[in-house]
């Protein structure tokens, strides 16, 4: 996870695999996830674009794409088991895989430390 990059909107991006998920901080605030809506495989997405929704017992929250690129896979397990997002947000609860089109965007994302600072700030 230390190699993961983060968006200020609480999505993580793994530069190794292209996987995208939501952070533990996001999960803690959402509560129990009951449904996840994801884009279609093959769709081109822009950084910051709303690409899906995570619905919990408390609220429905948009998922913003941390990078621009093409959606090459979505986590189909989540359709039947949305609880994976709660159980392992950085693992089996990943949302989708994006092939980034602009490496600069990836390096602009926050690293784990900067993201932890952001979360601490938001907790204030």
């Amino acid at each position: 996870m230390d190699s993961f990059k983060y968006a200020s909107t609480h999505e993580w991006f793994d530069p190794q695999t292209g996987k995208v998920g939501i952070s533990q901080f996001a999960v803690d605030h959402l509560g129990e996830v009951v449904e996840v809506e994801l884009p279609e495989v093959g769709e081109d997405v822009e950084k910051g674009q709303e690409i899906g929704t995570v619905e919990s017992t408390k609220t429905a929250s948009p998922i913003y794409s941390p990078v621009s690129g093409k959606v090459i896979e979505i986590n189909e397990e989540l359709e039947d088991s949305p609880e994976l997002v709660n159980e392992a947000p950085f693992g089996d609860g990943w949302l989708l895989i994006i092939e980034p089109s602009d490496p600069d965007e990836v390096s602009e994302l926050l690293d784990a430390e900067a993201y932890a600072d952001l979360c601490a700030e938001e907790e204030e």
Partner: protein
Amino acid sequence: MPDIKKGMLRKVPVIFELGCEGREGFALPEAEPLTGEPLPDRFRRAAPPLLPRLDEVSVVRHYTQLSHWNHAIELGSYPLGSCTMKYNPKINEITAALPGFTRVHPLQCEEHLQGSLELLYVLEDSLKRLTGFERITLQPLAGANGEFTGLSLIKKAIEAKGEGATRRKILIPDTAHGTNPASVVLNGFEPVSIETGAEGHLLPEAVVPHLGPELAGIMVTNPNTLGIYEASLKDIAAMVHGAGGYVYMDGANFNAIMGKVRPADIGVDTMHLNLHKTFSTPHGGGGPGAGPVGMTAELARFAPVPVVDRRDDGTFTLVTGSDDSMGKLHPFFGNFGVLVRACTYILELGEEGLHEVTRRAVLNARYLRKRLEEYLDLPYQVETLHEAVFSDKTLKKETGISTMDIAKRLLDFGFHPPTVYFPLIVSGAFMAEPTETESKEDIDDFVAAVATVIGEARENPDMVHNAPHNTGVGRLDEAFAARKKILRYTPAETDPVD
């Protein structure tokens, strides 16, 4: 062994588990043998439907027992913020049941409908006085239906100017009701979220970057869902108008400003009112509601038809109106029975009485806020009107007890909990609205219950975390229910749930 009863609060099995094969609630005469061609096989069921087999009294008891599990405003306080669960005076029911209203048909000739038409006319006129608009349509069936209507009027006006292709953006503050962006999308507009200022209301600066030829309008709930008056709305409206856009006001919280502010005077072009909130008609459980929409003279030519007008001789007539009309939203005149109740409320209270309603609703909410401030965080310290929004931040950090736990435990004390986790900009929101109908004693009782729960959170957190304890069912696993949706009863033998 029979189920142990919890006092008078009975354990209620699902209806399918009651009765037995062959039992019937009533006797039907012997059916005559079928003649002619039987129904083709493809239209026939393979097996008879699974229907409960019960006698009448068992059915009545089943549903009456279930109703005892429910909370209602007629049982106790119901401080559900934003929903305005005020008591509905019984006189509303008396007038709505008058045969003159219940035994007419909307297709009867106008002469026979004069009383009903007059009621529609008087109600529209009263709402016009309170809001300052040129015209009010009574057709919309609920708040969200009203939003759809008002935005359709704006759309028609924009199209009439030939700007339909370019003016597509509607600004919506982040405190908005979830229905606002939905109504925007339903009308083919594009919602653009703007941030509420640090003081809990919208600032003109948030609107400035969006002014331009793409701006169709702004949709503002006033007072907003934090209970705070949108003090800059008049300036913002002028800016939006200057850029060629329109102003929609979500009037869900009109009970906080009725008699104090006429929205048309501050630049609102169209708004809806929730009769089932401000004007005391029943709601909850899906209505029927009513969401009349006010509009300026410019928008009035697009209004739904028919409208009621008064002839010079004092009689009333239906006008089907202009070719520009957006059409109908509902057959005939909307939820007429609801309109009778709202009109009764308005005429019973009179102008001064309605102003007093506003004063008391605000006074009650401020009193509640002052008392609860002792126990919960108040994220926005500015003046609030009809409701107050608290946060569980400190409590959760110190005890692990959240807003949801408090809400569940309040059920044990006989209170419907406040609205929770809304508005979204407050973490762990706890949104209480006492309305004008609660007495000081009622509010004090509610505060005492909250204080007790907060005390328990520190001394006996498990008690709160596992609540409720005194209700028909305990804490439900909402996440499981939403994840594994079982929407139809299946008998136990084949039940897929483990």
